[in-house]
């Protein structure tokens, strides 16, 4: 009989913990692979055009992944920003207005960068200099940015919104270009996040801001860097929103802010940030979420549910899967008290 306190028992329990940790770490990737396989099976079983459907997955996932990857820098700090959808909308709106009045693509992109990064910097300024809770700052920013964008769209556009000639960003509307841009952006962010002191210090700040401050790490500096990275993601998201759909209306990118939360949690990153943050969570989570929704949609239509009914049911099932995935992924980190 092995004593519970014996070294053999301790090593067995460490091994068990390690196996569990590894299993939980690869779970999001395994889930993505499973969903991808299921999606391909469902599409081909229905004699649908797989290439067309995969293009749809890329189209839907690109903006979410680009914005979410930048946003991970903010989430790592233990903060979060729900105004990113509104920033994307404003960035795209100002981009369309700039191009329509100047016909200059370079200037349009420049203005979009200024708006995207400027909005993020304003949020970080309010949060760090005036010490307003980040979440409330982003709620206020969300209202202000979407209201400004709506005002611009209503006063300058027609009933359908503001339109940009398809030739401006249209050439970017190719799956391979989108995959290439996602790859470059994710690799750049991964480099900053995993191989430079920016990522290490952000994780430290997310895990224990008090201790990080005592070691001389400036919360302000890293908050600004995080918001700038999120701003860059917003600009890329806005450009690819316009490449796919050159007409901007008040509903454009409206759910991105919240979808980011779902995507990064789906990708296996804790919402509290800190050392367990992963840059690839946005990539895995974003595409998993899109694949899950599309697969459910097709399956429900196969089952005879009409397209309106399938939208509601798809959302219910994907929410249940989301909760189940988070439940399994957080099994190793259960506290005695209720989490807050």
């Amino acid at each position, binding site marked *: 009989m092995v004593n519970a306190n014996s070294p053999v028992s301790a090593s067995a329990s460490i091994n068990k913990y390690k196996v569990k940790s590894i299993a939980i770490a690869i779970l999001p990737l395994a889930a993505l692979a499973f969903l991808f396989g299921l999606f391909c099976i469902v599409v081909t079983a229905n004699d649908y055009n797989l290439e067309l459907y995969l293009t749809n997955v890329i189209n839907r996932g690109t903006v979410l992944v680009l914005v979410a990857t930048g946003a991970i820098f903010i989430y790592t700090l233990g903060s979060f920003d729900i105004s990113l959808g509104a920033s994307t909308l404003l960035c795209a709106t100002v981009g369309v207005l700039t191009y329509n009045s100047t016909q200059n693509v370079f200037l349009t992109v420049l203005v979009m960068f200024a708006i995207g990064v400027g909005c993020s910097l304003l949020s970080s300024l309010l949060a760090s200099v005036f010490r307003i809770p980040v979440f409330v700052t982003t709620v206020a920013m969300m209202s202000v940015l979407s209201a400004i964008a709506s005002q611009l769209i209503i006063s300058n556009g027609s009933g359908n919104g503001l339109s940009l000639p398809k030739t401006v960003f249209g050439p970017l509307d190719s799956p391979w270009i989108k995959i290439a841009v996602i790859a470059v952006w994710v690799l750049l962010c991964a480099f900053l996040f995993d191989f430079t002191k920016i990522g290490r210090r952000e994780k430290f700040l997310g895990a224990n801001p008090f201790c990080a401050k005592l070691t001389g790490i400036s919360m302000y500096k890293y908050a600004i860097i995080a918001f700038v990275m999120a701003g860059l993601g917003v600009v890329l998201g806005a450009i690819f929103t316009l490449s796919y759909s050159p007409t901007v209306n008040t509903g454009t990118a409206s759910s991105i802010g919240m979808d980011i939360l779902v995507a990064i949690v789906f990708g296996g990153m804790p919402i509290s940030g800190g050392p367990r943050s992963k840059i690839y969570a946005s990539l895995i989570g974003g595409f998993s979420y899109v694949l899950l929704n599309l697969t459910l949609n097709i399956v429900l239509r196969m089952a005879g549910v009409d397209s309106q009914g399938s939208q509601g049911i798809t959302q*219910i099932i994907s929410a249940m899967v989301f909760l189940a995935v988070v439940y399994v992924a957080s099994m190793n980190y259960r506290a005695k008290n209720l989490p807050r």
Partner: protein
Amino acid sequence: MEQLITKQRAKEIAKKSVGTLAIPLVFAVVTLIACAAGGRTMISGISGFSNFLIYAGIVTITTFALSINLGSGRFDFSLGSMAVLSTLISIKITSSMPVSSGTAIVNLLLCFAVGAILGAVSGTLYVLLKIPPIITSLGVTLIFEGITYSIASGKYINGGEAMAIYNFMNNNWWFALIVIAVTLALMIFVFDHTKFGRDYAALKEGQKVSVNTGIKEIPNAIVCYVICGAMMGIVGFLSVARSGGLDGRSLSFGSIGIMFNAFLPMFIGGFIGRFSNDKLGYLLAGLCMSMLNSTFAAYINEVSASTQSIINAVLLVVFLIYLSNEQTCKDLVTGKLFKKWHDAIKMRSAQRKTREEAE
């Protein structure tokens, strides 16, 4: 001695009264001046007053619901979806009943009950899954929105029961007043005068210590969610009373906007609560928001919805800047801040001089 105590007490009461009423009075004066300047009326007629009360009720009760869980560090995105779903279920249940003035009252009670059940579902999921409440609320929001969309077939529901509620509430302004008064009394009783309320306050201030002293956190959390759900049921009812319809088209977090209106009143109410009671503070803040909303309505052709959103958000930011830097703001007004800066600069130059001399 007795005279001194009475004097001190009177001073304290005066201070509390001024602190409690200052912000609502400022709001009232500013909005009345704004209306008078343009030759408009803030509240015109009984229907205007009824609308004023209904909006105040929506904001106040949403603020109650938001503050319950947010105050305990539990962020709940599902408030809006609970309001819409509870009202939709209630309307569907009563749709077979003949439409009369009693329909509105039955609907209110049903909204309250269904909201409480939805809150219980949300709270039970949170305590069973033991995952952060913000994540649970994301899932719950999506589920409730999906159910709403499926029941309403993705349509805007109006006419029938919704119109009956609208007509009843707009013809009987006193009913909104009763709803607000009863909700306020209920909130004060439950959170300030019961064991549950005391446990809630203890858990809010120190979760670990409270649990270690024997307070049962799980039932307390579930009851908090139940109360939130019931409150949001009332909010859903009042929203139908205001617009005469219910939006069943919200998907992908389209319902979360309902709770964002409650952030500014929550902070204003919290500030007023320092001088009296936080729940009373939320009510006064709700009235302030309703005054602002009525002023916007008076200028409906000049002030667009986007401008209103910007004004509300700017007010929120300015108020939060004040709250987060209260001492600095006070020092700025009294001139102490400049003295502090002057002293700091003087001290630094003295230190530099000493260092240079030492070198």
